[in-house]
C-alpha cells in the first residue's frame, strides 16, 4: 500500500488553526494572569488569519485530497467563513464575563479553537472517518468546556449528561456508518453514494437500518426531538459563554455534516430519510415551542427555541431540493447569528454574582438601556419571524421549499407552531417595554462589545431588508 503525499493546499486553514492552537497552548503557560489578553488577541488573530487563508486558497471548483477523505468546495469555504466570524463574536462577547468570574484562562480559548478546528474538519469531511473525527474533536472540546467552571455543580452535572448521551449518540452514528461500510465496502462518501445509486430501488433492510442509526446520530448532534433531552440541561448548566459557543457555530457544522451525509452520501435514499426527518421536524416544532412557553429561565427558553428552530432547519433539508438546501443554509446561518445575539445579550446584562438569565431580569430594560432593549427586540422579532427582520425570510424560504414539494400541510403546521412560538419571544419584548424595572444597576460594558451587539442586532433588520445578499451566498454555496 503506497501512501503518496497528499495535496496539502486545501487544508491550509485547518493546519493554521491547529498550529496556532498548539502555539497558544504553550504561550499561555508563560503568561501571568493579568497578561491573559494576549491569549485572547492571538485567538482572534487565528480566526482572522484562517478566514483570510481560506479565501486565499479558495478556488471555485471542488478539490478532494487526503485520499478522498477531505474536500474543499464553495460550500465548505462559505460555511467555514461563517464559523470564523461567529466564533470571533463568541470570544468577544465572552471576555468580560470570564474576567469578572475568574474564568479568564487559556483553556477556554485553546478548547474553543480546537472546537473550531473540529467544526472545520466536519465541514470539509468527505469520508466517514474524517467526519467522525471532526465530530468527536468538537464534542470532546464542548464536553470539557461545559465543565469548565469546575466549582459549579450544575455545570458538572450538565457536562456529565452531555458526555454520556453524546457517547451513546456517537456510538449509534458509528454503528450506522459501519453498516454502510459493510454494505458498500467503502468509507468514502462519493463511493457510498455511487453504490446506492447503482442499487436504487432495491435497498435491503440492513441499509435502511444503517440509515436510521445515522439519522439518529445526526439528530442528537442537532438536538432534534426525541434526541433533544441534553439541550436544555446543557444550555442551562454551562457557563453562558460556553452556551453561546455551543448554541451558535456548531449548528453550521451540523448542517454541513447533514449535507455531506444525507444529501450527498445517502441522496439516493431521500425518500426514506425524508419520512424520518418529517417525523423529527414535526416533533421538534411542537415540543420546542410548547415547552419554551413554560420556561422562566431565558437560557432554557432559548434552548427549547433552538429545538424548534432545528425543526425548521430539518424542513428545508427534507425537501431535498436545491431550494430546500439553500433555504436550510440560510436558516442555519440566520439562526446562528440570532442565537449569538440572544446569548450575547445575557452576557451583557450579567455581572459578577448576578446572572441575567431569568426572564424577570429583562423587566423594564427599555427604561434602563433603551438601545440594548431595542437590539433585543430586533433579535426576538427575528426569532419569532416578524417581518421585516431576517428571521421572517428564513422561515419564508423554508416554507416555500416545503410547499414546492407538495407538503403544504407541513408548512401550515410549521406556521401554526411559529405562532405559538411567537408568544414567548414577544413576552420578552413585553417584559422589556411594559414592565417596571427592578433596581439592579446595569454593568458598564466596553465599546467593542456594545458595537458588536449593535451590529448583531441591526444585522437582523439589514439582512431582513436586503435578504438577497445572504440568499445569493446560500444559493452559491449549495451549488446548482
Amino acid at each position, binding site marked *: 500500500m503506497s501512501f503518496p503525499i497528499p495535496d496539502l493546499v486545501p487544508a491550509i486553514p485547518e493546519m493554521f488553526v491547529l498550529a496556532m492552537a498548539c502555539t497558544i497552548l504553550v504561550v499561555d503557560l508563560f503568561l501571568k494572569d493579568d497578561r491573559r489578553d494576549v491569549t485572547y488577541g492571538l485567538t482572534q488573530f487565528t480566526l482572522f488569519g484562517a478566514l483570510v487563508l481560506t479565501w486565499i486558497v479558495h478556488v471555485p471548483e471542488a478539490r478532494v485530497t487526503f485520499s478522498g477523505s477531505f474536500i474543499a468546495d464553495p460550500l465548505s469555504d462559505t460555511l467555514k467563513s461563517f464559523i470564523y466570524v461567529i466564533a470571533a463574536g463568541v470570544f468577544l462577547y465572552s471576555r468580560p464575563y470570564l474576567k469578572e468570574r475568574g474564568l479568564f484562562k487559556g483553556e477556554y480559548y485553546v478548547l474553543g479553537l480546537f472546537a473550531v478546528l473540529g467544526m472545520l474538519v466536519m465541514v470539509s469531511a468527505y469520508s466517514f472517518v474524517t467526519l467522525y473525527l471532526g465530530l468527536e474533536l468538537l464534542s470532546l472540546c464542548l464536553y470539557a468546556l461545559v465543565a469548565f467552571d469546575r466549582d459549579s455543580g450544575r455545570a458538572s452535572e450538565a457536562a456529565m*449528561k452531555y458526555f454520556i448521551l453524546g457517547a451513546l449518540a456517537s456510538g449509534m452514528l458509528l454503528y450506522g456508518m459501519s453498516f454502510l461500510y459493510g454494505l458498500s465496502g467503502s468509507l468514502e462518501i462519493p463511493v457510498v453514494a455511487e453504490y446506492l445509486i447503482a442499487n436504487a430501488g432495491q435497498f435491503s433492510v440492513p441499509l435502511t437500518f444503517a440509515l436510521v442509526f445515522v439519522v439518529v446520530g445526526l439528530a442528537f448532534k442537532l438536538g432534534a426531538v426525541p434526541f433533544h433531552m441534553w439541550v*436544555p440541561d446543557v444550555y442551562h448548566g454551562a457557563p453562558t459563554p460556553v452556551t453561546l459557543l455551543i448554541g451558535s457555530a456548531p449548528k453550521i457544522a451540523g448542517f454541513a455534516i447533514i449535507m455531506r451525509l444525507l444529501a450527498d452520501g445517502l441522496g439516493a435514499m431521500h425518500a426514506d430519510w425524508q419520512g424520518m426527518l418529517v417525523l423529527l421536524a414535526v416533533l421538534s416544532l411542537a415540543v420546542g415551542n410548547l415547552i419554551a412557553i413554560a420556561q422562566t429561565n431565558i437560557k432554557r427558553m432559548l434552548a427549547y427555541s433552538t429545538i424548534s428552530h432545528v425543526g425548521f432547519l430539518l424542513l428545508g433539508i427534507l425537501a431535498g431540493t436545491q431550494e430546500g438546501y439553500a433555504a436550510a443554509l440560510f436558516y442555519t446561518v440566520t439562526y446562528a447569528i440570532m442565537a449569538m445575539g440572544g446569548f450575547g445579550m445575557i452576557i451583557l446584562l450579567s455581572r459578577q454574582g448576578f446572572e441575567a438569565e431569568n426572564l424577570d431580569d429583562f423587566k423594564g430594560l427599555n427604561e434602563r438601556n433603551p438601545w440594548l432593549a431595542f437590539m433585543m427586540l430586533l433579535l426576538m422579532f427575528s426569532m419569532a419571524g416578524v417581518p421585516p427582520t431576517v428571521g421572517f425570510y428564513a422561515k419564508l424560504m423554508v416554507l416555500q421549499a416545503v410547499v414546492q414539494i407538495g407538503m403544504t400541510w407541513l408548512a401550515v403546521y410549521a406556521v401554526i407552531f411559529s405562532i405559538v412560538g411567537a408568544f414567548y419571544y414577544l413576552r420578552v419584548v413585553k417584559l422589556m417595554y411594559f414592565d417596571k424595572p427592578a433596581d439592579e444597576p446595569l454593568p458598564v460594558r466596553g465599546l467593542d462589545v456594545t458595537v458588536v451587539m449593535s451590529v448583531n442586532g441591526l444585522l437582523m433588520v439589514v439582512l431582513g431588508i436586503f435578504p438577497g445578499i445572504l440568499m445569493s451566498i446560500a444559493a452559491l454555496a449549495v451549488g446548482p
Partner: protein
Amino acid sequence: MHNVYLAIVLAPLIGAIAAGLFGRQIGRIGAHTVTILGVALSCLLSLVVFQHHVIGEAEVYNAMVYTWMVSDGIRFEIGFLIDNLTALMMLVVTFVSLMVHVYTIGYMHDDPGYQRFFSYISLFTFSMLMLVMSNNFMQLFFGWEAVGVVSYLLIGFWFKRPTAIYANMKAFLVNRVGDFGFVLGIGAILLHTGSLDYWEVFGQAEGMARETIGILPGAEWSLLTVACILLFVGAMGKSAQVPLHVWLPDSMEGPTPISALIHAATMVTAGIFMVARMSPLFEYSEAALSFVLIIGALTAFFMGLVGIVQNDIKRVVAYSTLSQLGYMTVALGASAYAAGIFHLMTHAFFKALLFLAAGSVIIAMHHEQDIRRMGGLRKYMPITYGVSLVGSLALIGFPGFSGFFSKDGIIEAVHASQIPGAGFAYLLVLLGVFVTAFYSFRMFFLVFHGEERFRHVQHDDAHGHDAHHGHGHEPHESPWVVTLPLILLAIPSVLAGYWVGPILFGGFFDGVIFVLPEHDVLGKLGADYHGIGGYIAHGLMAPPFWLAMAGLGAAWYIYMKNPAIAARAHERFGKLYELLDHKYWFDEIYAAVFARGSVKLGSTLWRFGDALFIDDILVNGTAKTVGRLAQWARHSQTGYLYHYAFAMIIGLLVLITAFVF
C-alpha cells in the same frame, strides 16, 4: 342645457357648503342670503328647464356627466335624465324649497343654529335634485341616502332634546330597513342586467319578468317581481307606508319648516317618484303592483283614522301626510302613475302650505302645539286663517281646489282598475275621504274657531326651546317672511289642479311613464274627459264629494255645535279610541319585538358569541390550552440521565419500526 342642469344641482350645494363651513364668517344674513340665492337660481333655472322640456317639447336629455369608476364592466356614473317627469319634480322641489328658505328666516330667527339650519336645507335640496335628476341606480341610491342623512340631521336639529334624538334615531333605523330592501332590489336588477343605467335596465324588463329566482328552496319567484317588491320596500321606508311608517309622526320633532319641506312635500315623496320612474319594471309584474296597491290603501285609510285622535297640530298634519302618501301609492298600484305624480305635486303645495300655516300658528301661540289649547285665532291671524282654509279645502278635495282633481283622479282610477285587490283598495280610499275631511276640519275648527281656550290653560312649557315669551301677549299675525310664502303656496294649491287635463289624460308623460294597455285605467277615464267644467260637474255628483261634505259637517257638528258628543263618543268607544291613540300599538310592538329583540340578540351574541366563544374559548382558551400543554410537557424533562437515554432508545426504536419494517 348641460350646464344649466349642472348649475341647478350645484347652486344649492355651494350654498350649503358656504353656510355650513363658513357660517361663522359670513354671519346670519350672509348664510341665508347665499343659500336663498342658490336655491332661487335653481328654481329659476328649473323653470327654464320646465319651459324647455314641457312647453318647448324638447328631446329627452340623457347623458353622463362623470364616471366615478368602472369595476368588472359595471359603470358607476353620475348622469342626468331630464324629461317631463324630472322637470316637474325639479320645479316642485326647488319651488317648495325656496318658499321654505324664505319662511325659515322668520321661523328660526332667534335660533342659535341658524346657519347650520340653512346649510342643511340647501344640502337637502341638492340631494333631492340629485335623486330626481339621476339616470342610473347608483346616483339614485346616492340621492336616496343623502336625503335620508339630511332628514336625520334635521329631525335631530335640536339635539339637546332627548325626544328629538329618539326621533331621529328611529327615523334612521326604520329607513335602514327600507334601504336594505332597496339596495337588495338594485342588486337583483344588477344581477340580471349587469347595468345600473335606467334605460339599459328598462330595455331588459321583459326578460327579467321571465327569469325566475329561487330564494327559498323549492319556491321559484319571478326575478322582476322580487326586484320590484324589494325596490318598493325602499319606497315604503322613505315614503312611510305601513308598516314602516312609524318614523314619520315622530319626525315632527324637527323644526316646522323641515316638516313642510322634507316630511311632507319632497323627501317622503321620493318613493312615489321612484316607483313612477320604474314604471317600465313594475308594469310587468302584476304581483308587485297588487302589493303596492294594498299597502297604499291600508296606509291611506288607517293612518287617516289615527289623525282624528291627535291633538298636536303638527301630528295631525303628519298623519294626514301619511294618509295622502297612501293615496299616491294606491295610484301607483293601480298603474295610474300620472295620477300619483299629479297628487304628489298638488299635495306638495297644499301640504307645505298647511305645515307652514301650522308653523305660523305655533309661532303665534309661543310654541304651543296642542290644538285643545287654541281656538278662535281667526280674528288675530286673518292671513294664516285664509291660507289654512285654502289648504284644508284642497286637502279634502273640495271641487275647484287642486286636491279635488288629483284625488278624484286616483279614486276613479282605482275604481276602474282590474288589478287584484283593487276592489278592497277602492273601498278604503273612498272611506278615507270622509276621514280626511273629518280630521282636517276638526283641527281647523279647533284652532281658528270657537272659544279662545289658550286664555284659560296653565301653560306648561313642554316645547320650550325658546322660553323668551310670557303670557298676556295677544296672538298676532306672523311677519311678512312667514306670510309671503304662505300666500305664494296658496296660489298653486288652488290652481295646480287645473292642469289635470294634460297630466292625467293628455300626453304629458308620453315616453316617460310606461303603462301596459291592459293596465291603462287613465286612458279609459280619459275617454270620458271633456274639459275641466265637466270634470268638476261630474265630481259634484260623485260619492267622494258627498263623503267629504259629510266629514266636514260631522266635524262642525261635533266640535263646534255640540262638543258633548265628542266626550260621549270618547266614553262609548273607549277601546277604539285607545287603539287609535296608541296608533295601533305599532311603536310598542316594534319596541318590544325589534328593539328589545335586537338588544337581546346583541347581548346574547356578545355574551355567548364574543365573550364566551371567541374570547374565552378561541382566544384565551387556545392560550390556556397551550399553556397547560406546556406545563404538562415540561415534566418530560425530568433531569434524570437514564430518562434521557431511554427517550433516545425509544426514538430509535420508533424510527426502526416505522421505516425498516
